[in-house]
Protein backbone atom coordinates (compact mmCIF):
# COMPACT_ATOMS: atom_id res chain seq x y z
CA UNK A 1 0.00 0.00 0.00
CA UNK A 2 1.36 3.36 -1.03
CA UNK A 3 1.69 6.25 1.38
CA UNK A 4 -0.93 9.00 1.28
CA UNK A 5 -0.36 11.01 -1.86
CA UNK A 6 -1.37 14.53 -2.76
CA UNK A 7 -2.32 14.70 -6.40
CA UNK A 8 -1.33 17.97 -8.04
CA UNK A 9 -4.47 19.93 -8.71
CA UNK A 10 -6.67 17.95 -6.33
CA UNK A 11 -8.16 19.89 -3.47
CA UNK A 12 -7.33 17.47 -0.68
CA UNK A 13 -4.97 14.60 -0.01
CA UNK A 14 -6.56 11.16 -0.44
CA UNK A 15 -5.18 7.65 -0.14
CA UNK A 16 -6.63 6.72 -3.50
CA UNK A 17 -5.54 8.92 -6.36
CA UNK A 18 -8.32 11.31 -7.41
CA UNK A 19 -11.20 9.73 -5.46
CA UNK A 20 -14.52 10.77 -7.04
CA UNK A 21 -18.05 9.79 -6.06
CA UNK A 22 -18.89 9.04 -9.69
CA UNK A 23 -16.03 6.52 -9.93
CA UNK A 24 -17.04 4.36 -6.96
CA UNK A 25 -18.77 0.99 -7.03
CA UNK A 26 -21.78 2.73 -5.46
CA UNK A 27 -22.10 4.87 -8.62
CA UNK A 28 -22.34 1.64 -10.64
CA UNK A 29 -25.01 0.40 -8.26
CA UNK A 30 -26.95 3.66 -8.67
CA UNK A 31 -26.94 3.17 -12.44
CA UNK A 32 -28.04 -0.42 -11.90
CA UNK A 33 -30.92 0.74 -9.66
CA UNK A 34 -32.14 3.52 -11.95
CA UNK A 35 -32.04 1.41 -15.13
CA UNK A 36 -33.79 -1.40 -13.24
CA UNK A 37 -36.55 0.95 -12.09
CA UNK A 38 -37.04 2.07 -15.71
CA UNK A 39 -37.70 -1.60 -16.54
CA UNK A 40 -40.19 -1.88 -13.66
CA UNK A 41 -42.15 1.03 -15.14
CA UNK A 42 -42.04 -0.59 -18.56
CA UNK A 43 -43.21 -4.05 -17.45
CA UNK A 44 -46.12 -2.49 -15.55
CA UNK A 45 -47.28 -0.77 -18.76
CA UNK A 46 -46.60 -3.88 -20.82
CA UNK A 47 -48.61 -6.02 -18.42
CA UNK A 48 -51.55 -3.63 -18.61
CA UNK A 49 -51.50 -3.95 -22.43
CA UNK A 50 -51.36 -7.76 -22.26
CA UNK A 51 -54.41 -7.90 -20.01
CA UNK A 52 -56.34 -6.25 -22.86
CA UNK A 53 -56.46 -9.79 -24.30
CA UNK A 54 -59.30 -10.44 -21.87
CA UNK A 55 -61.34 -7.74 -23.68
CA UNK A 56 -61.27 -9.80 -26.86
CA UNK A 57 -59.79 -9.78 -30.36
CA UNK A 58 -60.76 -6.27 -31.45
CA UNK A 59 -59.90 -4.44 -28.23
CA UNK A 60 -56.46 -6.06 -28.03
CA UNK A 61 -55.59 -5.34 -31.66
CA UNK A 62 -56.86 -1.78 -31.43
CA UNK A 63 -54.62 -1.22 -28.40
CA UNK A 64 -51.65 -2.70 -30.29
CA UNK A 65 -52.23 -0.50 -33.35
CA UNK A 66 -52.88 2.56 -31.23
CA UNK A 67 -49.42 2.22 -29.68
CA UNK A 68 -48.01 2.88 -33.15
CA UNK A 69 -49.93 6.12 -33.51
CA UNK A 70 -49.60 7.25 -29.90
CA UNK A 71 -48.59 10.91 -29.75
CA UNK A 72 -49.52 11.68 -33.37
CA UNK A 73 -49.48 14.27 -34.83
CA UNK A 74 -46.87 15.61 -32.36
CA UNK A 75 -44.82 12.46 -32.98
CA UNK A 76 -44.34 10.68 -36.31
CA UNK A 77 -45.98 7.28 -36.91
CA UNK A 78 -44.28 4.69 -34.64
CA UNK A 79 -42.60 7.64 -32.88
CA UNK A 80 -43.64 6.64 -29.37
CA UNK A 81 -42.61 3.02 -29.99
CA UNK A 82 -39.14 4.00 -31.18
CA UNK A 83 -38.63 6.41 -28.29
CA UNK A 84 -39.54 3.55 -25.93
CA UNK A 85 -37.23 1.15 -27.76
CA UNK A 86 -34.37 3.65 -27.61
CA UNK A 87 -34.89 4.23 -23.88
CA UNK A 88 -35.19 0.52 -23.11
CA UNK A 89 -32.10 -0.33 -25.13
CA UNK A 90 -30.13 2.35 -23.27
CA UNK A 91 -31.40 1.03 -19.93
CA UNK A 92 -30.51 -2.52 -20.98
CA UNK A 93 -26.97 -1.56 -21.97
CA UNK A 94 -26.44 0.29 -18.67
CA UNK A 95 -28.01 -2.50 -16.59
CA UNK A 96 -26.02 -5.29 -18.24
CA UNK A 97 -22.72 -3.38 -18.39
CA UNK A 98 -22.91 -2.50 -14.67
CA UNK A 99 -23.94 -6.07 -13.81
CA UNK A 100 -20.96 -7.49 -15.69
CA UNK A 101 -18.50 -5.09 -14.05
CA UNK A 102 -19.90 -5.64 -10.54
CA UNK A 103 -19.91 -9.42 -11.06
CA UNK A 104 -16.29 -9.28 -12.21
CA UNK A 105 -15.35 -7.36 -9.06
CA UNK A 106 -17.31 -9.75 -6.85
CA UNK A 107 -15.51 -12.76 -8.34
CA UNK A 108 -12.15 -11.06 -7.85
CA UNK A 109 -13.05 -10.16 -4.27
CA UNK A 110 -13.19 -13.85 -3.31
CA UNK A 111 -10.48 -15.69 -5.24
CA UNK A 112 -10.59 -18.77 -2.97
CA UNK A 113 -14.01 -20.26 -2.27
CA UNK A 114 -15.19 -21.65 1.06
CA UNK A 115 -15.34 -25.42 1.52
CA UNK A 116 -18.53 -24.94 3.55
CA UNK A 117 -20.68 -21.80 3.20
CA UNK A 118 -24.13 -21.16 4.60
CA UNK A 119 -26.30 -18.31 3.38
CA UNK A 120 -27.98 -17.15 6.59
CA UNK A 121 -30.05 -14.02 6.05
CA UNK A 122 -30.30 -14.32 2.26
CA UNK A 123 -33.56 -14.93 0.39
CA UNK A 124 -33.14 -17.36 -2.57
CA UNK A 125 -34.16 -14.63 -5.05
CA UNK A 126 -31.21 -12.47 -3.99
CA UNK A 127 -28.75 -15.18 -4.94
CA UNK A 128 -30.44 -15.80 -8.27
CA UNK A 129 -29.97 -12.28 -9.66
CA UNK A 130 -27.07 -12.98 -12.04
CA UNK A 131 -28.31 -16.26 -13.50
CA UNK A 132 -31.85 -14.90 -13.42
CA UNK A 133 -30.72 -11.81 -15.32
CA UNK A 134 -29.02 -13.96 -17.96
CA UNK A 135 -32.16 -16.12 -18.27
CA UNK A 136 -34.31 -13.00 -18.68
CA UNK A 137 -31.93 -11.66 -21.34
CA UNK A 138 -32.19 -14.87 -23.38
CA UNK A 139 -35.94 -14.83 -22.91
CA UNK A 140 -36.19 -11.23 -24.12
CA UNK A 141 -34.23 -12.12 -27.27
CA UNK A 142 -36.69 -14.96 -28.03
CA UNK A 143 -39.66 -12.82 -27.02
CA UNK A 144 -38.70 -10.10 -29.52
CA UNK A 145 -38.21 -12.70 -32.28
CA UNK A 146 -41.54 -14.25 -31.31
CA UNK A 147 -43.73 -11.15 -31.23
CA UNK A 148 -41.88 -8.08 -32.49
CA UNK A 149 -39.12 -8.34 -35.07
CA UNK A 150 -39.59 -11.82 -36.52
CA UNK A 151 -43.20 -12.62 -35.59
CA UNK A 152 -42.90 -16.38 -35.40
CA UNK A 153 -46.10 -18.42 -35.17
CA UNK A 154 -44.90 -21.75 -33.77
CA UNK A 155 -48.34 -23.33 -34.30
CA UNK A 156 -48.78 -22.60 -38.02
CA UNK A 157 -45.08 -22.22 -38.87
CA UNK A 158 -45.74 -18.84 -40.51
CA UNK A 159 -43.50 -15.82 -39.93
CA UNK A 160 -43.78 -12.07 -40.53
CA UNK A 161 -47.22 -10.62 -41.37
CA UNK A 162 -48.50 -14.10 -42.29
CA UNK A 163 -48.09 -15.07 -38.63
CA UNK A 164 -51.40 -13.31 -37.96
CA UNK A 165 -52.57 -10.12 -36.26
CA UNK A 166 -51.32 -9.45 -32.70
CA UNK A 167 -54.25 -11.19 -31.03
CA UNK A 168 -54.17 -14.30 -33.23
CA UNK A 169 -50.40 -14.61 -32.91
CA UNK A 170 -50.80 -14.39 -29.13
CA UNK A 171 -53.49 -17.08 -29.02
CA UNK A 172 -51.66 -19.42 -31.44
CA UNK A 173 -48.43 -19.05 -29.45
CA UNK A 174 -49.92 -19.97 -26.09
CA UNK A 175 -51.99 -22.78 -27.56
CA UNK A 176 -48.64 -24.59 -27.77
CA UNK A 177 -48.08 -25.98 -24.28
CA UNK A 178 -44.30 -25.75 -24.27
CA UNK A 179 -44.41 -22.10 -25.35
CA UNK A 180 -46.67 -21.36 -22.40
CA UNK A 181 -44.23 -23.25 -20.19
CA UNK A 182 -41.27 -21.18 -21.45
CA UNK A 183 -43.18 -17.97 -20.74
CA UNK A 184 -44.29 -19.10 -17.30
CA UNK A 185 -40.74 -20.07 -16.33
CA UNK A 186 -39.52 -16.68 -17.57
CA UNK A 187 -42.22 -14.92 -15.54
CA UNK A 188 -41.22 -16.86 -12.41
CA UNK A 189 -37.67 -15.64 -13.04
CA UNK A 190 -38.94 -12.09 -13.55
CA UNK A 191 -40.85 -12.32 -10.28
CA UNK A 192 -37.75 -13.46 -8.41
CA UNK A 193 -35.65 -10.75 -10.07
CA UNK A 194 -38.17 -8.10 -9.02
CA UNK A 195 -38.60 -9.50 -5.52
CA UNK A 196 -34.97 -8.75 -4.75
CA UNK A 197 -34.36 -6.07 -7.39
CA UNK A 198 -36.99 -3.57 -6.32
CA UNK A 199 -35.90 -3.74 -2.67
CA UNK A 200 -32.25 -3.57 -3.71
CA UNK A 201 -32.81 -0.48 -5.86
CA UNK A 202 -34.53 1.35 -2.98
CA UNK A 203 -31.67 0.43 -0.65
CA UNK A 204 -29.12 1.60 -3.24
CA UNK A 205 -30.97 4.89 -3.62
CA UNK A 206 -30.67 5.27 0.14
CA UNK A 207 -34.41 5.26 0.83
CA UNK A 208 -34.43 2.51 3.47
CA UNK A 209 -32.68 4.19 6.36
CA UNK A 210 -34.83 2.72 9.14
CA UNK A 211 -36.03 -0.75 10.07
CA UNK A 212 -39.62 0.30 9.31
CA UNK A 213 -38.74 1.65 5.86
CA UNK A 214 -36.81 -1.54 5.14
CA UNK A 215 -39.75 -3.76 6.10
CA UNK A 216 -42.13 -1.59 4.06
CA UNK A 217 -39.97 -1.67 0.95
CA UNK A 218 -39.53 -5.44 1.24
CA UNK A 219 -43.32 -5.86 1.34
CA UNK A 220 -43.76 -3.56 -1.67
CA UNK A 221 -41.09 -5.49 -3.62
CA UNK A 222 -42.78 -8.80 -2.92
CA UNK A 223 -46.20 -7.41 -3.85
CA UNK A 224 -44.88 -5.89 -7.10
CA UNK A 225 -43.18 -9.18 -8.00
CA UNK A 226 -46.42 -11.10 -7.47
CA UNK A 227 -48.57 -8.55 -9.32
CA UNK A 228 -46.25 -8.29 -12.34
CA UNK A 229 -45.27 -11.96 -12.69
CA UNK A 230 -48.86 -13.02 -11.94
CA UNK A 231 -50.40 -10.42 -14.27
CA UNK A 232 -48.22 -11.50 -17.18
CA UNK A 233 -48.91 -15.19 -16.48
CA UNK A 234 -52.70 -14.77 -16.58
CA UNK A 235 -52.86 -14.42 -20.38
CA UNK A 236 -50.82 -17.54 -21.33
CA UNK A 237 -52.69 -19.60 -18.72
CA UNK A 238 -56.06 -18.28 -19.96
CA UNK A 239 -55.16 -19.19 -23.56
CA UNK A 240 -53.93 -22.67 -22.67
CA UNK A 241 -57.05 -23.39 -20.63
CA UNK A 242 -59.31 -22.06 -23.39
CA UNK A 243 -60.54 -19.03 -21.46
CA UNK A 244 -59.19 -16.89 -24.29
CA UNK A 245 -59.42 -18.22 -27.88
Amino acid sequence: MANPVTTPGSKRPTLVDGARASRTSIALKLLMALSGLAFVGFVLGHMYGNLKAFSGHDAFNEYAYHLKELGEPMLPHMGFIWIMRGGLLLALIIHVACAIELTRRARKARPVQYVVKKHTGAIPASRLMRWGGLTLFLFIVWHLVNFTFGKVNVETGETGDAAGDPYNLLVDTFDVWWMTLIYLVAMAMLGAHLHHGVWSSMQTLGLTGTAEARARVKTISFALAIVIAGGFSLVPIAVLTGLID
Partner: protein
Amino acid sequence: MNLTLKIWRQTDAVDKGKIHTYAISGISQDMSFLEMLDVLNEQLNEQGEEPVAFDSDCREGICGMCSLMINGEPHGPEVTTTCQLHMRSFNDGDTITIEPWRSGAFPVVKDLVVDRSAFDRIIQSGGYISANTGSAPEANSVPVPRDNAVRAFNVATCIGCGACVAACPNGSASLFLGAKITHLGELPQGQPERWSRVVDMTAQHDHEGFGGCTNIGECAAACPKEIPLDVISQLNKDLRTAMRHGH
Protein backbone atom coordinates in the same frame (compact mmCIF):
# COMPACT_ATOMS: atom_id res chain seq x y z
CA MET B 1 -17.53 -34.25 23.73
CA ASN B 2 -15.79 -35.96 20.86
CA LEU B 3 -15.44 -33.95 17.69
CA THR B 4 -14.04 -34.18 14.18
CA LEU B 5 -12.37 -30.95 13.12
CA LYS B 6 -11.72 -30.09 9.49
CA ILE B 7 -9.29 -27.20 9.60
CA TRP B 8 -7.71 -25.15 6.82
CA ARG B 9 -3.92 -25.50 7.06
CA GLN B 10 -1.65 -23.22 5.06
CA THR B 11 2.02 -22.75 5.95
CA ASP B 12 2.36 -19.20 4.62
CA ALA B 13 0.84 -16.63 2.24
CA VAL B 14 2.11 -18.38 -0.91
CA ASP B 15 1.24 -21.96 0.07
CA LYS B 16 -1.89 -23.28 -1.62
CA GLY B 17 -3.22 -24.82 1.60
CA LYS B 18 -5.78 -27.55 2.20
CA ILE B 19 -8.20 -28.98 4.75
CA HIS B 20 -6.73 -31.30 7.43
CA THR B 21 -8.91 -33.53 9.58
CA TYR B 22 -8.29 -33.93 13.32
CA ALA B 23 -10.10 -36.01 15.91
CA ILE B 24 -10.39 -34.43 19.35
CA SER B 25 -11.91 -35.84 22.53
CA GLY B 26 -12.65 -34.80 26.09
CA ILE B 27 -13.99 -31.37 25.18
CA SER B 28 -16.21 -29.77 27.84
CA GLN B 29 -19.40 -27.98 26.81
CA ASP B 30 -18.32 -25.06 28.98
CA MET B 31 -15.19 -24.41 26.95
CA SER B 32 -15.15 -21.51 24.55
CA PHE B 33 -14.47 -22.32 20.91
CA LEU B 34 -10.97 -20.89 21.17
CA GLU B 35 -10.25 -22.93 24.32
CA MET B 36 -11.24 -26.00 22.31
CA LEU B 37 -8.66 -24.98 19.70
CA ASP B 38 -6.12 -24.43 22.50
CA VAL B 39 -6.70 -28.04 23.56
CA LEU B 40 -6.19 -29.18 19.98
CA ASN B 41 -2.95 -27.21 19.77
CA GLU B 42 -1.62 -28.75 23.00
CA GLN B 43 -2.40 -32.14 21.51
CA LEU B 44 -0.60 -31.22 18.27
CA ASN B 45 2.39 -29.91 20.25
CA GLU B 46 2.68 -33.21 22.12
CA GLN B 47 2.60 -35.07 18.82
CA GLY B 48 5.34 -32.82 17.47
CA GLU B 49 3.05 -31.26 14.87
CA GLU B 50 2.79 -27.58 14.03
CA PRO B 51 -0.09 -26.03 16.05
CA VAL B 52 -2.96 -24.34 14.21
CA ALA B 53 -2.44 -20.58 13.91
CA PHE B 54 -5.53 -18.48 14.68
CA ASP B 55 -6.11 -14.92 15.80
CA SER B 56 -7.44 -13.89 19.19
CA ASP B 57 -6.81 -11.07 21.60
CA CYS B 58 -9.27 -9.87 24.24
CA ARG B 59 -11.34 -13.09 24.32
CA GLU B 60 -14.26 -11.07 25.65
CA GLY B 61 -15.96 -10.14 22.38
CA ILE B 62 -14.88 -6.52 22.10
CA CYS B 63 -11.67 -6.38 20.09
CA GLY B 64 -12.69 -7.92 16.76
CA MET B 65 -9.52 -9.97 16.44
CA CYS B 66 -10.89 -13.52 16.36
CA SER B 67 -12.16 -14.40 12.95
CA LEU B 68 -13.14 -17.93 12.05
CA MET B 69 -15.52 -19.29 9.47
CA ILE B 70 -17.18 -22.10 11.42
CA ASN B 71 -19.36 -24.52 9.45
CA GLY B 72 -19.91 -21.87 6.78
CA GLU B 73 -20.86 -19.06 9.17
CA PRO B 74 -18.58 -16.25 10.37
CA HIS B 75 -18.07 -16.66 14.14
CA GLY B 76 -20.20 -19.82 14.01
CA PRO B 77 -23.89 -20.48 14.64
CA GLU B 78 -24.54 -17.86 17.36
CA VAL B 79 -24.74 -14.07 17.02
CA THR B 80 -21.47 -13.40 18.82
CA THR B 81 -17.74 -13.44 18.28
CA THR B 82 -15.81 -16.71 18.02
CA CYS B 83 -14.23 -16.16 21.46
CA GLN B 84 -17.69 -15.85 23.02
CA LEU B 85 -18.98 -18.95 21.24
CA HIS B 86 -19.13 -21.97 23.53
CA MET B 87 -18.98 -25.66 22.79
CA ARG B 88 -22.53 -26.10 24.11
CA SER B 89 -23.62 -24.76 20.71
CA PHE B 90 -22.35 -28.04 19.24
CA ASN B 91 -23.23 -31.68 19.78
CA ASP B 92 -21.11 -34.67 20.66
CA GLY B 93 -19.89 -36.34 17.46
CA ASP B 94 -20.21 -33.19 15.30
CA THR B 95 -17.90 -32.45 12.41
CA ILE B 96 -16.82 -28.81 12.46
CA THR B 97 -15.23 -27.17 9.43
CA ILE B 98 -13.03 -24.18 10.27
CA GLU B 99 -11.75 -21.85 7.55
CA PRO B 100 -10.18 -18.39 7.42
CA TRP B 101 -12.11 -15.34 6.13
CA ARG B 102 -12.11 -15.62 2.34
CA SER B 103 -11.47 -12.26 0.73
CA GLY B 104 -8.91 -11.09 -1.78
CA ALA B 105 -8.46 -8.00 0.42
CA PHE B 106 -7.77 -10.18 3.51
CA PRO B 107 -4.84 -12.36 2.40
CA VAL B 108 -4.21 -15.47 4.49
CA VAL B 109 -1.03 -15.11 6.54
CA LYS B 110 -1.00 -18.62 7.96
CA ASP B 111 -3.65 -21.29 8.60
CA LEU B 112 -6.67 -19.35 9.94
CA VAL B 113 -4.94 -15.99 10.31
CA VAL B 114 -5.73 -13.28 7.76
CA ASP B 115 -4.31 -9.79 7.31
CA ARG B 116 -7.15 -7.29 7.84
CA SER B 117 -5.10 -4.11 7.49
CA ALA B 118 -7.30 -3.19 4.49
CA PHE B 119 -9.85 -2.08 7.13
CA ASP B 120 -7.21 0.10 8.79
CA ARG B 121 -6.53 1.82 5.48
CA ILE B 122 -10.26 2.42 4.93
CA ILE B 123 -10.40 4.09 8.38
CA GLN B 124 -7.22 6.01 7.60
CA SER B 125 -8.77 7.34 4.40
CA GLY B 126 -11.64 9.10 6.17
CA GLY B 127 -12.77 7.50 9.42
CA TYR B 128 -11.75 10.47 11.55
CA ILE B 129 -12.91 13.93 12.59
CA SER B 130 -10.88 17.10 12.78
CA ALA B 131 -10.39 18.37 16.32
CA ASN B 132 -8.53 21.46 17.40
CA THR B 133 -5.60 21.00 19.70
CA GLY B 134 -5.58 22.59 23.14
CA SER B 135 -7.64 21.90 26.19
CA ALA B 136 -10.67 19.66 25.79
CA PRO B 137 -13.86 21.65 25.10
CA GLU B 138 -16.78 21.45 27.51
CA ALA B 139 -18.61 18.27 26.44
CA ASN B 140 -22.08 19.79 26.77
CA SER B 141 -21.28 22.72 24.49
CA VAL B 142 -22.21 20.63 21.43
CA PRO B 143 -25.67 19.17 22.03
CA VAL B 144 -26.49 15.91 20.23
CA PRO B 145 -30.17 15.00 19.73
CA ARG B 146 -31.01 11.77 21.49
CA ASP B 147 -32.04 9.77 18.40
CA ASN B 148 -28.81 10.68 16.60
CA ALA B 149 -26.73 9.82 19.65
CA VAL B 150 -28.45 6.43 19.97
CA ARG B 151 -27.98 5.54 16.32
CA ALA B 152 -24.37 6.71 16.30
CA PHE B 153 -23.64 4.68 19.40
CA ASN B 154 -25.40 1.57 18.08
CA VAL B 155 -23.35 1.47 14.90
CA ALA B 156 -20.17 2.52 16.70
CA THR B 157 -20.27 -0.92 18.31
CA CYS B 158 -18.74 -2.26 15.06
CA ILE B 159 -15.48 -3.91 16.08
CA GLY B 160 -14.15 -4.23 12.53
CA CYS B 161 -13.88 -8.01 12.76
CA GLY B 162 -14.59 -8.55 9.07
CA ALA B 163 -17.44 -11.05 9.48
CA CYS B 164 -19.53 -8.98 7.05
CA VAL B 165 -16.90 -9.38 4.34
CA ALA B 166 -16.51 -13.08 5.14
CA ALA B 167 -20.26 -13.66 4.82
CA CYS B 168 -20.91 -11.49 1.75
CA PRO B 169 -21.29 -13.46 -1.50
CA ASN B 170 -19.72 -10.43 -3.24
CA GLY B 171 -16.88 -10.03 -0.75
CA SER B 172 -18.09 -6.51 -0.05
CA ALA B 173 -17.23 -4.52 3.08
CA SER B 174 -20.28 -2.27 2.76
CA LEU B 175 -21.67 -3.05 6.22
CA PHE B 176 -18.37 -2.07 7.85
CA LEU B 177 -18.18 1.02 5.64
CA GLY B 178 -21.82 1.90 6.32
CA ALA B 179 -21.31 1.54 10.08
CA LYS B 180 -18.39 3.99 10.04
CA ILE B 181 -20.16 6.46 7.74
CA THR B 182 -23.32 6.38 9.86
CA HIS B 183 -21.44 6.59 13.16
CA LEU B 184 -19.63 9.81 12.23
CA GLY B 185 -22.43 11.16 10.02
CA GLU B 186 -24.96 11.15 12.87
CA LEU B 187 -22.82 13.39 15.08
CA PRO B 188 -22.19 17.15 14.80
CA GLN B 189 -18.44 16.52 15.04
CA GLY B 190 -18.59 14.39 11.89
CA GLN B 191 -20.21 17.03 9.67
CA PRO B 192 -17.22 19.05 8.37
CA GLU B 193 -15.74 16.05 6.54
CA ARG B 194 -19.03 14.24 5.89
CA TRP B 195 -19.08 14.37 2.08
CA SER B 196 -15.37 13.90 1.42
CA ARG B 197 -15.32 11.07 3.98
CA VAL B 198 -17.88 8.90 2.19
CA VAL B 199 -16.14 9.35 -1.17
CA ASP B 200 -12.63 8.72 0.16
CA MET B 201 -13.60 5.69 2.25
CA THR B 202 -15.65 4.15 -0.58
CA ALA B 203 -12.81 4.75 -3.04
CA GLN B 204 -10.40 3.07 -0.63
CA HIS B 205 -12.87 0.19 -0.14
CA ASP B 206 -13.00 -0.37 -3.91
CA HIS B 207 -9.23 0.06 -4.24
CA GLU B 208 -8.61 -2.65 -1.65
CA GLY B 209 -10.51 -5.07 -3.88
CA PHE B 210 -13.73 -5.50 -1.90
CA GLY B 211 -16.75 -6.24 -4.10
CA GLY B 212 -19.89 -4.18 -4.61
CA CYS B 213 -22.95 -4.67 -2.40
CA THR B 214 -26.05 -6.33 -3.86
CA ASN B 215 -28.13 -5.92 -0.68
CA ILE B 216 -28.42 -9.64 0.01
CA GLY B 217 -28.19 -9.19 3.78
CA GLU B 218 -25.87 -12.04 4.81
CA CYS B 219 -23.54 -9.43 6.37
CA ALA B 220 -26.12 -8.16 8.86
CA ALA B 221 -27.07 -11.75 9.75
CA ALA B 222 -23.40 -12.56 10.44
CA CYS B 223 -22.51 -9.38 12.35
CA PRO B 224 -21.70 -10.22 15.99
CA LYS B 225 -22.67 -6.66 16.95
CA GLU B 226 -25.98 -6.78 15.02
CA ILE B 227 -25.25 -3.74 12.86
CA PRO B 228 -28.46 -3.36 10.81
CA LEU B 229 -28.61 -3.31 7.02
CA ASP B 230 -29.90 0.27 6.97
CA VAL B 231 -26.36 1.60 7.46
CA ILE B 232 -25.73 0.55 3.84
CA SER B 233 -28.74 2.62 2.80
CA GLN B 234 -27.19 5.52 4.75
CA LEU B 235 -23.86 4.94 3.01
CA ASN B 236 -25.52 5.01 -0.41
CA LYS B 237 -27.52 8.10 0.49
CA ASP B 238 -24.42 9.91 1.73
CA LEU B 239 -22.50 9.03 -1.43
CA ARG B 240 -25.38 10.24 -3.60
CA THR B 241 -25.50 13.47 -1.59
CA ALA B 242 -21.72 13.86 -1.85
CA MET B 243 -22.07 13.60 -5.63
CA ARG B 244 -24.56 16.46 -5.54
CA HIS B 245 -22.12 18.49 -3.42
CA GLY B 246 -19.54 18.15 -6.19
CA HIS B 247 -17.33 15.42 -4.76
